[in-house]
C-alpha cells in the first residue's frame, strides 16, 4: 500500500462467502491463473502491473477491476495477442 494510511476500519463483514461477487470476477481470477501457467507473466509481474495503474484509477477500481486492468495492460505490453 506504499505506506498510505486513512482507509478506515477493516471491513470484517466481507467474509468471502461467496468468494466472487459476480461471475466476471471469477473469470478474471481464472484468466490470471491461466496466463501464469502459460508463462505470459508471473505473479510479481501481475502485482507490479496492478501497482502501475494510474493512482486515480487504482483507488476508484474494485479489487478485480484492478486485476482486469492489469491483465489487459500486461497482454498489451507482452504483445501476445494479434
Amino acid at each position, binding site marked *: *500500500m506504499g505506506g498510505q*494510511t486513512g*482507509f478506515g476500519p477493516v*471491513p470484517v463483514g466481507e*467474509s468471502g462467502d461467496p468468494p466472487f461477487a459476480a*461471475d466476471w470476477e471469477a473469470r478474471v481470477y481464472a484468466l490470471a*491463473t491461466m496466463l501464469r501457467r502459460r508463462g*505470459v507473466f508471473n505473479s*510479481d509481474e501481475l502485482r507490479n502491473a496492478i501497482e502501475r495503474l494510474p493512482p486515480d484509477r487504482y483507488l476508484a477500481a474494485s479489487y478485480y477491476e484492478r486485476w482486469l486492468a492489469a491483465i489487459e495492460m500486461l497482454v498489451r505490453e507482452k504483445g501476445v495477442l494479434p
Partner: protein
Amino acid sequence: MTGHDDLPVAARTRQLEERLIAAGLTSDDEIDEFLTRLYTKASPVNGARMVARAWTDPRYRDLLLSDGDAGAAEMGFGDLTYGLRVVPNTGSAHNVIVCTLCSCYPVSLLGPSPGWYKSFAYRSRTVREPRAVLAEFGLALPPDTGITVWDSTSEARYMVLPARPDGTGELAEDDLAALVTRNGLIGTALL
C-alpha cells in the same frame, strides 16, 4: 488505453477471454475446470486437517513447521509451490498473516481469500497496528502477548498453526479439525 476500457467490466472480461482463447492461450474448458476445482477443492478444511494432524502427531508437526509445502503434500495437497511457512501460536506469541503488496494467500489450503484480506484497510494497517486491527475482529489479546505479522509474497506464503484449545485431549483428529476456523488459520481469531 484502448477503446474497450470503456465497456462494462463483465463485457471487457468476456472480450479479453475470447481474444485469449482465439490466440490459443486458454480455453473455456480449461477455465471451467479450474473454477470447478477452486469451488470444490480449495477450502479451509484442508488447512484445518493439517492443523489437527500437527496437534496429534509430533513428527508431523516438526515436518510442517520445517517445510510447509512438504507438510501439505503429506496430507495430499501436493504440487504446491507456495514456499509455505507455518507459524505456530502459543500462549504468549500470536501470529497473523497479511499481504501488503496485494493478496498472496495459500488458496488451496484456506480457500479463496475473504474480501477483508484484500481490503486497503487490512493491508495497510495490519503491519502498523496489528493489535487495533485484531480488536476489530473481536480479538483482544493480552498486552503481554507478542504479535508477529507475516507479510506474504509470491515466494513465501503463510498459515498460522493455532494453539490447541484446552479440554480437547479426548477428541479424535476429525473432531479437532472441525474446531479450526479460516480466521484461526489467518490469525484474526483464536480457537
